[in-house]
């Protein structure tokens, strides 16, 4: 089934997760925490580590699959930034994204818990109904609609309604977009040559080709930047609300 194929794109050494919410939930539940901003901030680093392993794993060819994880990572990063950089003011939309993620995660948690019962009961004591049974001898009852023309039209309709195969981006492109370590290295290099580097300029400079790519770039760059902040390599300065974030090499 195609289902199995999509599933395999998420499989990594650390275990397989169907999607970003399942991963997040398992990270939170592992720590026996409740779903809230604090717990989300706490699991962000592990989440990023997972997304990184996803993008490194050569078997992950599906850009769509990985991008779901990266999109949630963006919100997670916002949450983490809030706790790391109290001066950082979030836009209304960003705040909205945060409450939204919490909300989704709570819904998913309820479903996930309930699904255990579904799993345990599924197919155990099936209530059978003899659906395909026919009581009486068939009586040939055609319909004037049945003729070679209509039958050919119908089969053509059937073909037209088949699911379209998923378009896959070439592998090279996937690699270009998703390699987070490469982004971190670039960032470090640039920090070392220039004292100040604008985050906006930096994420632009990665050669994105379309809007979706830009979005992924910004996220990946932002992830990388925060990683550097965490490791104490750079300082982040945001001069005013919504202003570009400046990055500066920290004096060691």
């Amino acid at each position, binding site marked *: *089934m*195609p289902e*199995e*194929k999509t599933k395999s794109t998420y499989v990594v050494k650390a275990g397989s997760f169907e999607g970003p919410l399942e991963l997040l939930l398992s990270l939170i539940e592992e720590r026996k925490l409740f779903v809230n901003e604090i717990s989300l901030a706490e699991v962000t680093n592990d989440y990023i580590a997972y997304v990184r392993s996803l993008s490194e794993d050569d078997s992950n060819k599906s850009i769509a699959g990985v991008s779901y994880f990266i999109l949630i990572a963006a919100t997670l990063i916002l949450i983490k930034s809030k706790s790391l950089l109290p001066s950082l003011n979030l836009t209304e939309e960003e705040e909205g994204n945060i409450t939204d993620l919490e909300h989704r995660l709570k819904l998913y948690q309820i479903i996930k818990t309930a699904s255990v019962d579904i799993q345990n009961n599924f197919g155990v004591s099936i209530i*059978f109904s*003899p*659906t*395909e*049974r*026919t*009581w*009486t001898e*068939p*009586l*040939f*009852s*055609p*319909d004037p*609609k*049945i*003729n*070679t*023309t*209509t*039958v*050919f039209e*119908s*089969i053509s*309709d*059937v*073909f037209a*309604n*088949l*699911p379209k195969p998923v378009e896959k981006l070439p592998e090279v492109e996937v690699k270009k977009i998703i390699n987070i370590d490469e982004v971190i290295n670039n960032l470090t290099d640039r920090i070392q040559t220039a004292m100040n580097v604008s985050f906006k300029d930096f994420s632009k400079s990665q050669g994105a080709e379309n809007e979706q790519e830009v979005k992924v770039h910004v996220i990946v760059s932002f992830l990388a930047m925060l990683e550097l902040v965490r490791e104490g390599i750079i300082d982040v300065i945001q001069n005013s609300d919504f202003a570009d974030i400046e990055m500066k090499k920290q004096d060691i």
Partner: protein
Amino acid sequence: MELESKIEGLLFYKGEDVSVKKLAELFKVSTDEVEQALTKLEQSLVGRGLVLVRKDDSVIMGINGELGPLIESIRKDEIAKELSKASLDTLSIILYKNGISRSEIDYIRGVNSSFILRNLLVRGLIEKIIDEKDSRRILYRPTFETLSYMGVTSIDKLPNYVEVKSQLENVINLNQNSND
């Protein structure tokens, strides 16, 4: 659950006659016990919509004769009804593939087809056969009457037969491969 209730459920499922001996085997009881249970079941069905019909050493569950006229008129409605688009689509798949399993039909149509297949069977437009390669598999094919009604002497006279058939087979193979 009492034995008579178990027998009731089983007979409903089977929809055909089952021997007393077979019932005893299935429920791991003696034939005497089955006989007693059948008597109880008969009694409990008095005045209900279902009846137990016994013939020789077999038993079958049927519908109370009083409902005969109603069932007959429903049946007439069922077969006189216009064929739905979904039914026609399903019939076209069965015509071109000539010998296809329910799960293959379901996969091609993207929905479950049990009710539609039942309707096509009742109308005598298709019939069930056992797969020669796997006796546990049931296949569907058009009836002879359907083909003559359409005025085709053999299946390969259907429009674009060769192309359609190979396209159908491609879809089915695709599904099988992705299952591996």
